[in-house]
């Protein structure tokens, strides 16, 4: 098979960025721990790139807010009376007090500073200043009092933000990955669970464990099903990658026939794969897909046709249950990455979503979040707001996540050893990682 994954050569000037990638398949280790690199990322990546701030269902009613923190900044996202979402730098215009923390609701349409009682309407306009007479008049003009606004955009059932006033609009920044992912129905999905772990690893190291499937044979025995080495045929899982200039990318449908595990039937592989994921992730498969699969166990289905029979049965089930499952798409599969730090693993009306951020200013710590999303039956959307669980210790995660997290922290350890100057990547398997680094360097090189 041929793979169209030749990464674009770096478009960054030679001296602008420390530890920049000059050979796309070799990643300097300093990018994962050097403080100069992390500070550059903080200023030029995190304060400029559009990024996932929250799910729309995190703030369902007017007045509901959620805080998003990145790069030492705190941003409040607030549902407005008309149903739109606005975001503000989270600080009182008087003496900087943060106006909301975590999640909550501003009642009575008022954001209130807990310190001296200044108030704002949900749209950021000042509504009250206690004892105004003591202030210089210039400090009290409406523009000075108005909360500083942060740019937002909505896509895929999520709110994205950027701290860069000059950034292009969200649709432009997301570009082609949006049309690739839209048929999957992220906007119809709701949160089944939302958990996080604090990892002793650079944020990129952590997310890169979810941007390639080359590791499946060794790292996930439950998914390689005992097939060792070349007996697990990686080619059967590969269809190449589509890497976009904006740093986003996705894996394409496998082009080869057959299953990766030597000597295994399509039916057995499909069933065992779902079973392993059901137990090993608690995210996909869910009870729903396991039920549908169980219903096919006694059916007389030609081996090669089992996956299609499953899709048909799932569609039939969804129709009966009032689940607005979108038609199956051949446009993408497996996994996709939205630059800089969101990775999705969709499957038949479900998706796992990852978001990874640095934790404070330590380049070797990160906050790793996982959402399990699913399209619920119409009219049966969960009523409450999703609650972030954790931090959940690494060892308490389902098996497959545990295996990934464990490798990530081992990598971070190995980075510091003698003679380890660069990570060597396989262009044929790890193109999405290469592409993300290339785009990071473009951000860091910008004036």
């Amino acid at each position, binding site marked *: 098979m041929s793979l169209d994954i030749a990464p674009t050569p770096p478009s960054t000037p030679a001296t602008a960025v420390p530890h920049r990638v000059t050979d796309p398949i070799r990643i300097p280790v300093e990018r994962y721990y050097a403080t100069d690199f992390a500070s550059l990322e903080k200023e030029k990546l995190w304060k400029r790139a559009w990024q996932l701030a929250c799910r729309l269902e995190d703030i369902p009613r007017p007045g509901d807010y959620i805080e998003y923190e990145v790069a030492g900044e705190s941003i409040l996202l607030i549902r407005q009376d008309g149903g739109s979402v606005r975001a503000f730098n989270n600080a009182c215009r008087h003496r900087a007090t943060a106006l909301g923390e975590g999640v*909550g609701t501003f*009642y009575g349409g008022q954001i209130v500073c807990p310190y001296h009682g200044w108030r704002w309407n949900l749209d950021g306009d000042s509504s009250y200043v206690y004892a105004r007479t003591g202030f210089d008049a210039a400090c009290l003009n409406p523009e000075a009092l108005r909360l500083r606004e942060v740019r937002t955009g909505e896509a895929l059932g999520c709110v994205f933000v950027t701290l860069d006033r000059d950034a292009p609009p969200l649709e432009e920044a997301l570009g082609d990955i949006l049309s690739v992912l839209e048929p999957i129905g992220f906007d119809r999905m709701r949160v089944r669970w939302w958990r996080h772990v604090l990892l002793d690893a650079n944020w990129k190291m952590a997310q890169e464990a979810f941007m390639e499937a080359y590791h499946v044979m060794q790292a996930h025995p439950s998914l390689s099903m005992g097939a060792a080495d070349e007996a697990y045929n990686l080619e059967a899982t590969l269809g190449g990658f589509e890497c976009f200039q904006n740093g986003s990318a996705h894996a394409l449908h496998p082009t080869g026939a057959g299953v990766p595990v030597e000597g295994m039937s399509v039916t057995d592989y499909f069933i065992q794969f779902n079973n392993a994921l059901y137990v090993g992730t608690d995210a996909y498969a869910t009870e729903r897909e396991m039920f549908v699969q169980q219903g096919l166990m006694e059916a007389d289905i030609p081996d090669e046709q089992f996956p299609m029979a499953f899709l048909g049965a799932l569609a039939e089930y969804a129709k009966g249950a009032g689940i607005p499952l979108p038609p199956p798409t051949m446009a993408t599969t497996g996994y996709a990455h939205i630059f800089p730090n969101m990775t999705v693993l969709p499957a038949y009306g479900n998706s796992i979503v990852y978001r990874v951020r640095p934790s404070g200013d330590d380049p070797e710590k990160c906050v790793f979040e996982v959402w399990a999303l699913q399209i619920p039956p119409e009219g049966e959307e969960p009523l409450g707001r999703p609650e972030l669980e954790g931090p959940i210790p690494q060892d308490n995660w389902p098996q497959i996540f545990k295996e990934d997290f464990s490798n990530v922290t081992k990598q971070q350890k190995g980075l510091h050893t003698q003679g380890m100057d660069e990570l060597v990547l396989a262009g044929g398997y790890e193109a999405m990682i290469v592409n993300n680094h290339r785009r990071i360097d473009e951000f860091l090189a910008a004036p």
Partner: protein
Amino acid sequence: MARVRVEPAGVEVEVPAGVSVFAAALEAGLSWPTICYGQARCTACALRIVDGHRHAEPPGPDEDGVLRQLRGRRRSSAGDSRDTRLACRLTVRGAVTVEKNGAKPIVREDSP
């Protein structure tokens, strides 16, 4: 949906399940004493339950903490101190009558 009667104003407010008496009262166009606007912080919204006690959901941890402070600074209270609740956290599952001075319909300046 449950009906909460507010004395001494003598007004009734429909309170949906899971919504606080304070939020429902503002929604219904009442003015209700507050400084923190529903953040379980200022205690200005505190009310006294006078009837329908069994329909009041018990206080959660954040309300409980604030109520404890409130009791601590009141030397004596009329009646059972458990009847004092934060309107911004009180949810109900049936008819309740509460007492709150200062809770009343907003009189609009343009009304006759």
